[in-house]
């Protein structure tokens, strides 16, 4: 409260333009006849007073003060006619700005003076919903059905305890029996894979059977029942029944 009135007054203004508009209104003249020079003097006087009471002024106030002082000097003592025109245009622009701000103030007053919805005028408080939702329809398509089936099965399966896959393994005994039974009917060399059991689709079971059959073949060959031959590394292993008469032939080839 030790601060003088001016402090409070300046703070009541929304920036320098607001103060200018207030001062212009105080001139009580038409916009066209407003004295820019008087306006500048009044503005600068207010700012001087504010400075005297050590009121801190924001930058935009100081910028406006400097600009107004410059404008006043150009209006009073133009150095050449072109500059005078320039200064008058700037002064006109300032009055235009003040007039526009004044119009907007009046527009705000117009709005503020109207009866407002929710303040003086009221709308229906409890709007009625006139939409009726028919929820009897079903939103379901085939992809959703199939996904549901797959999801249900996957979940059910995942929940079962883990059981290792049951393997049907072809034993060496099995292989010996099959080899012995089949080899007699062979007229000539045949690949070892011909002696595998039929209907083996699982690759693991097939490899196991191949191993058993090879062991069985080696065993049988050792006993002299068959001959084995492989022409190159990783090539097919060939099998045929032993024929004593041609026994020399492999030796010839080998030599």
């Amino acid at each position, binding site marked *: 409260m030790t601060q003088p009135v001016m402090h409070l007054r300046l703070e009541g203004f929304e920036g320098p333009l607001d103060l200018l508009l207030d001062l212009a209104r105080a001139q009580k003249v038409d916009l066209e006849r407003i004295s820019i020079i008087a306006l500048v003097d009044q503005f600068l006087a207010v700012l001087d007073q504010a400075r005297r009471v050590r009121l801190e002024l924001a930058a935009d106030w100081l910028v406006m003060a400097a600009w107004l002082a410059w404008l006043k000097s150009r209006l009073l003592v133009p150095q050449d006619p072109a500059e005078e025109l320039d200064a008058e245009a700037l002064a006109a622009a300032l009055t235009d700005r003040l007039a526009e701000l004044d119009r907007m103030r009046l527009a705000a007053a117009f709005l503020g003076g109207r009866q407002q919805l929710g303040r003086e005028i*009221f*709308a*229906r*408080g*409890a709007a*009625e919903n*006139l*939409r*009726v*939702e*028919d*929820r009897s*329809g*079903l*939103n*379901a*398509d*085939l992809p*959703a*059905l*199939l996904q*549901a*089936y*797959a*999801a*249900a*099965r*996957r*979940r*059910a*399966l995942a*929940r*079962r305890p883990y*059981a290792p*896959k*049951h393997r049907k393994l072809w034993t060496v005994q099995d292989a010996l029996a099959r080899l012995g039974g089949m080899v007699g009917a062979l007229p000539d060399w045949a690949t070892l894979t011909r002696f595998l059991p039929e209907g083996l689709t699982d690759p693991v079971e097939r490899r196991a059977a191949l191993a058993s059959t090879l062991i069985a073949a080696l065993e049988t060959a050792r006993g002299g029942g068959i001959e084995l031959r492989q022409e190159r590394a990783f090539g097919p292993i060939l099998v045929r029944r032993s024929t004593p008469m041609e026994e020399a032939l492999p030796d010839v080839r080998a030599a």
Partner: protein
Amino acid sequence: MSEQPDAPEAAPGADAAADPALFAHALRIAEALVFASDRPIAAAKVQQALPPGVDARAVLTSLLATTAGRPVELVEVGGGYAFRTAADLAPALTRVVEVPRKLPRVAMETLAIIAYHQPVTRPEIEEIRGAALSQATLEALLEHGLIAPRGRKEVPGRPSLWGTTPRFLEQFGLQGLGDLPRREELVNEPGGLFQAPRLQAGGQPQG
């Protein structure tokens, strides 16, 4: 409807009845207030807005009578008063919006299992889903007309057998059950572990 203006024994509204202009003003206030309220408004609350000496109940009773038959009528609801559009206008005013519902996941899975394994009993469905099945789920499917009973299984307890309906085919845009992809295309069933209770639905295109 109930208040007779000349009834001298009418206790609360008596003085109001004596001043028709005041009562008319009170009627205006009450109507506007009920309109503006966001929920049914109690007579006591209306009373606060009325000029002194006018009884809210008498005003509201009068308003009930004068608005009866109007497109928007005063009604008494939930301990208060509110405006409601007249029932006879409902057909002209209401817009029906179709909001198709999604089947819950459990129902969709159950339906899929019935489709693939039909005819199938509830215990079998539970076995295939690996989870218990509520009666409500079956009933929901029944209600939508998607499944129907297909006799009983001749095992102890004689459980009902379930199968899908023509409505089911329609819903999913199928010509017949044979249009369903084969089960093996959907799930990798480990061969020996899961003995299908039924032969594959995909395999037998009946209907």
